[in-house]
């Protein structure tokens, strides 16, 4: 059992924040390439929240949001989820494919979002992989459009195995030209044992 995670102490938080920073930076670069536009990223906000507060940052437990979920495979086990509100999801699709109709989130919009999520989470995890010298890959994506509370119950339950808090990294991407901003949250969810492996590889004394 990891004792580090129970505390989420300041050193661990700093390391996870830095991972978030670099990972999201990589993701922003990937996004910029994908849409052939300059994309800025605000400094990620790392939040350690109680379960009850989690859905509030996305507009409340009943707010409809998009979650794209990946399993982590390789030397660490766990998962990563990218969550964004429906407005941001629509903007992201429109940035990628201008002119496409996203009314009602049709199949086409879903597969576009899965692909965007794949690229963002993939570049996030590949930077984590090179930072830690661990072989980590992501699975194929699984997407859900539903109540924030329901979607976030998935990472909350995983974190629930080790404590009563959840760690989320908020990223805001801003497309330079039209100043369209897209708000998304990465939630990295290593399995209990993998936390120690990950932090150990990053040089954190446990």
């Amino acid at each position, binding site marked *: 059992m990891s004792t580090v995670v129970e505390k989420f102490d300041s050193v661990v938080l700093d390391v996870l924040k830095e991972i978030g920073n670099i990972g999201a930076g990589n993701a922003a670069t990937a996004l910029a390439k994908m849409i052939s536009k300059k994309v800025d990223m605000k400094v990620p906000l790392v939040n350690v929240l109680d379960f009850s507060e*989690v859905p509030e940052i996305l507009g409340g437990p009943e707010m409809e949001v998009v979650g794209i979920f990946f399993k982590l495979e390789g030397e660490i086990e766990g998962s990563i989820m990218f969550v964004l509100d429906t407005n941001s999801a629509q903007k992201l699709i429109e940035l990628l494919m201008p002119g496409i109709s996203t009314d009602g989130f049709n199949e086409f919009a879903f597969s576009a979002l899965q692909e965007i999520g794949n690229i963002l989470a993939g570049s996030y995890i590949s930077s984590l992989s090179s930072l830690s010298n661990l072989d980590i890959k992501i699975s194929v994506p699984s997407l859900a459009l539903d109540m924030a509370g329901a979607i*976030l119950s998935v990472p909350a339950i995983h974190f629930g195995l080790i404590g009563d808090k959840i760690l989320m990294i908020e990223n805001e991407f801003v497309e330079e030209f039209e100043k369209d901003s897209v708000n998304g949250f990465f939630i990295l969810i290593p399995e209990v044992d993998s936390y120690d492996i990950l932090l150990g590889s990053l040089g954190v004394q446990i």
Partner: protein
Amino acid sequence: MSEMLKVGMADLKVAKYPNALTTLGLGSCIGICLYDPATKIIGMAHIMLPSSKTIKNNSNIAKFADTAIAKLLDDMKLEGANVNKLVGKIAGGSQMFKFSSGNDMMKIGLRNAEAVRDILSEHRIPIVADDTGGNFGRTIEFFSESGVLRIKTIGHGVKEV
């Protein structure tokens, strides 16, 4: 005036007539609703995991099916409910994300539902309504006046059980 009291994630509450209880956006978690028809005392727990026994950090009793149900029964008894005459209704336990090679954690909704059924049966509480499974979220509202449980979803309708 009746009030609608909110039960959060890993939380439990008891209410008396004419108040109601609600929990918003249940995913793989389970909303456990208990009702004493004679006194119209109701209780609701929003649990996240099946058992406190396999977890080291288990101080939050409302998080686990076993400890949450025990506490809910104690609290309802204190309010004057007859815990031998309770009926149960449960909702939630969905699998929000699908994977072909699912490990156990991906099927946590299913395991939660099984655990809740077993524990309620140990306490001899009949389950009169069971709306679990699927791949969508649920908001539930539980009314002390009638014992009716209203289940709301996005895209899967509203029903009362």
